[in-house]
């Protein structure tokens, strides 16, 4: 199926993503930041769908928005933040940080502007959506078998670490 109104949806979704990102780093209240981050994550999931990557979009929603963000919210509620809202929000070196980040942005844009020609006129190869999941499954259990196992091990270690860190008494 061919997407409709691609530019419109692209600009809408990326607008949401960037707006959400801005709100994440500017809100005083961490819950508002989390809400903004959820908007960003969902918008990025939409962008994945536009890039014919439905499985990644699904993973993004189920793991990020449904899992990680709930974890974040849980922790925000656990550590009472009423005090931090009234405190100074930015650290003392914020001008330097901002400057460095602007430099990074300039670097990115410069590279992209210079390499613009690489992307122009390139025919976008057809990538079928219909068997995307099957293909990814075959790849995960084929080429990337080892990486997949390592990733599961990483998750196991992370679970153990988180439990040990967060539990009062073991």
């Amino acid at each position: 199926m061919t997407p409709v109104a691609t530019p419109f949806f692209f600009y809408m979704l990326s607008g949401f993503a960037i707006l959400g990102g801005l709100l994440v780093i500017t809100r005083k209240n961490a819950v508002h930041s989390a809400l903004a981050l959820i908007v960003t994550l969902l918008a990025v999931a939409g962008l994945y769908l536009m890039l014919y990557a439905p499985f990644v979009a699904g993973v993004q929603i189920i793991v990020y928005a449904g899992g990680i963000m709930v974890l974040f919210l849980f922790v925000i509620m656990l550590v009472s933040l009423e005090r931090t809202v009234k405190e100074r929000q930015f650290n003392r070196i914020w001008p330097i940080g901002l400057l460095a980040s602007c430099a990074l942005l300039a670097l990115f844009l410069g590279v992209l502007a210079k390499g613009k020609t690489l992307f122009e006129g390139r025919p976008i190869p057809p990538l079928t959506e219909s068997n995307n999941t099957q293909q990814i499954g075959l790849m995960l259990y084929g080429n990337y078998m080892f990486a997949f196992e390592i990733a599961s091990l990483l998750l196991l270690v992370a679970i153990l670490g988180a439990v040990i860190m967060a539990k009062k008494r073991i």
Partner: protein
Amino acid sequence: MLESLKSFLEPSVARTPGEANNQLWALIYVLIIFAGVSVAVMAMNWLERKALAHFQVRLGPMRVGPHGLLQPIADAVKLLIKEDIIPSEADKFVFWIAPLIGLLAAFTVYTVVPFGPSQAVSDMNIGILFMLGVSSLAVLGVVMAGWASNSHYPLIGALRSSAQMVSYEVAMGLAVVSAILMTSLHGMGLYGVSKLSDGTGTLSMIGIVQAQQEQHVWFLFKFFPLGLIAFVIFAIAMIAETNRAPFDLPEAESELTAGFHTEYSGLRWSLFMLAEYAAMIAVSSIAVTLWLGGWLRPFPNLLAGSAWDFIFALFPGLTFLGLGAVAFLGTARMPKHPYFKIQTIGLAGFGVVLAGIGIILLAIPIAAKVSNHTLLNAATTTLLNVYWFVAKVAVFMYLYIWYRATWPRYRFDQLMRMGWKVMLPISLGVLIVTAIVGVLL
């Protein structure tokens, strides 16, 4: 117009509007589903109050309309015109947006619910993943509501529900995976030849039902009792997911007054309720799709043949005629006092409407059988698909009420222990055994 109607009804060429890239039909489908779910929620509201009342030796709503039939409307009006209270200490924005998140999550799920091979808004390649993902967003609404109320009881309710929903999602997801695994196992070895695919399964909701059709077995009965165990695990987890009794801890009335929506009132509260019931229907339709053969009629193997097909095609009409008969029975048993005159007339009118629908639904398959007209055949198929799907979901809805009437409430630690120490190992075991059995057979 007729041609396009035909093209969407005809099973051989029919595709979902999403696949056919037809935005207009997609919109129409969305509107139909939205209206249908809203009506279903209202009906469920009435049915729950009535059925619960009869479980509990009382009558339930009797005043608004005959046998309280108009009670949901009265409730809706009452909730709409109630004062909208936002606590002064609440976080206004989050308080405002929390019910909407829950509602959006509950309703977005319906885009992939397959009422038939072409009766879905879209047949996504990642259908079931999408459903689980979006329905897991509902927990965000709950957490936000609890936090934004800035009050202790809602906060505890929110913490409880986030822990509960996330925990049961794990067992639920593993049970779903074992059903998905079954789509790829044809009893011919892992790489057995099949029409459906090259040994890989599918995540598409329509694909899952079609796999059951091709394998001639509902996954409930596949690799007996593996499918059954996975189904039972899902059936338990879905009650916990939707915060219903006996897992209704987040809104446990006797402990937390009303849990996360303690501070909500009026329209916002009704949005939570709408979302809860919509989510109940949504998870039930996942269960129906994965294990109970979705839109497929019962006993396709045992009672096969066109004669049986015809008999089963009469079911929708007979159901409505039966409902009409119940309404007429009620009319006949109405008190003869003039006070009840309007109610009696109303109930009779309702019965007439039901019977009329029943006759129309009965006429369509009979006419199709007689004339064998393409459009009529297509209409019959569509009707049957939707009917069987809705009928199966309705059974789950009744079970929800039954559970609520029967069981006490679990305690939080017991709930978590059951989720992690009972449900999770069993669902993992079922998944592994399913994989082994599937490869060996």
